[in-house]
């Protein structure tokens, strides 16, 4: 069914695995499959919570920039209008953000690298648990871009504007400890326990969850 995602249900919890190891980078195919998963699969699944995680040591290294640049320039050559180009790409942002329309809690279980669009995806969940050695960040400005998939909108609303500005403009990665202090993530556990803790918290959150609890 999927090539770069893996979807399964265990004990009423839905698991979405980002599955293009080793870095689980987000290719054009990822965005297509993610769209399909969000619009077609979830609504037909009877689950009480969702967990998103990466196959292997890393969550994900984010979007494949070459893929994105290719899509944007082809589309621009075809339409000659930046608005048309971004209308199409904007769908990705809305699909990421639409995790917040779900009536069930969504947990990101983050081990290893979680940067760029992958970090933006995590920001769209309700609870981020990180393994100790996780690496977080929005490096886009260091290669001439800005975060383009909800990051510039969500980060200043989750944490202080000054912190969002520093994360986005410096492009530097940061530790889960730092992220916890900035109130961007909720929990740090030993790396090997990340998924297990995510299941524990998903169980707990699902008991009395209503989507009105979401504030961002």
């Amino acid at each position, binding site marked *: 069914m999927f090539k770069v995602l893996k979807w399964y249900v265990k004990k009423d919890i839905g698991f979405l695995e980002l599955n293009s190891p080793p870095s689980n980078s987000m290719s054009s195919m990822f965005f297509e499959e993610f769209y399909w998963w969000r619009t077609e699969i979830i609504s037909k699944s009877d689950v009480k919570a969702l967990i998103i995680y990466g196959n292997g040591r890393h969550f994900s290294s984010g979007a494949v920039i070459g893929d994105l640049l290719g899509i944007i*320039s082809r589309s621009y050559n075809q339409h000659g209008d930046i608005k048309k180009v971004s209308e199409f790409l904007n769908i990705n942002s809305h699909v990421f953000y639409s995790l917040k329309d779900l009536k069930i809690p969504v947990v990101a279980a983050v081990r290893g690298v979680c940067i760029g669009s992958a970090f933006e995806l995590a920001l769209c969940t309700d609870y981020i648990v990180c393994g100790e050695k996780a690496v977080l960040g929005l490096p886009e400005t260091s290669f001439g871009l800005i975060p383009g998939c909800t990051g510039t909108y969500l980060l200043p609303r989750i944490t202080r504007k000054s912190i969002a500005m520093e994360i986005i403009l410096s492009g530097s990665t940061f530790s889960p400890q730092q992220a916890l202090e900035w109130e961007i993530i909720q929990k740090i556990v030993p790396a090997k326990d990340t998924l297990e803790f995510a299941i524990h918290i998903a169980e707990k959150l699902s008991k009395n969850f209503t989507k009105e609890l979401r504030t961002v």
Partner: protein
Amino acid sequence: MTKSNISNWEKIGNIGILTLSNGKENYLIEPEFVKLTDLQKWTDDTELKGVIIRGLGRNFSAGASINDLINLARDNSQLSQKIEAGKQILDFIEDLNIPVVASINGVCFGGGLEIALACHMRIASENALFAFPETNLGLIPGLGGIYRITQLLGNHYVYELVLEADMLNATNAKEIGLIDYISETKDAFELSHFKIKNLTNDRSKEVICSAMQAIRNAETMNRVDALKIETELFCKLALKIKIHQQE
């Protein structure tokens, strides 16, 4: 160096430095601590990548002095005009799409604190002190300070700070999130300059402006519009990279 009201402007590399300069406490005299037209002219500069606002000497600013206020209040319509002009200056600073850092030594009171709150980041020395003393004089902060501090910290600390005119030292201010960093050196300027360079070095002006605009939109726009513009800015920058690579 150029001067406008009580402010001096100079550039160090790509960074503009606005220095409040009026005696030991850098009293504001009037809400227009700089002429808006001058500030607009100085910041309308394609090379400029960031701004630091600081006070000359050992203090940031003690805000308006009681005597200045009494003078201003003699003419009611003039007072409200002046306050409106002060608000416009602070709005202009907050809306700048390059980072603005407040570099704070010593006292940062009243209108001084309101200026600092309009900046995008606050860096203070260990001896910095923060307060809204206005209610002691039967006034309230008048330049948008109450709104900005509520946006920054939520309602939790506003009553103590505004109604009880509590004073905070740098450590307290850092704990509640009023400031972002405490400088280890006596003058916060060194760290402020280091930080702003870290945010702007190796970044094109267009990347800086796009990022700052998108972050500002998160506060001022609804989600659908903010996300739409985020993607548009992203695509514009992406096309530049592509063109650059093909050349």
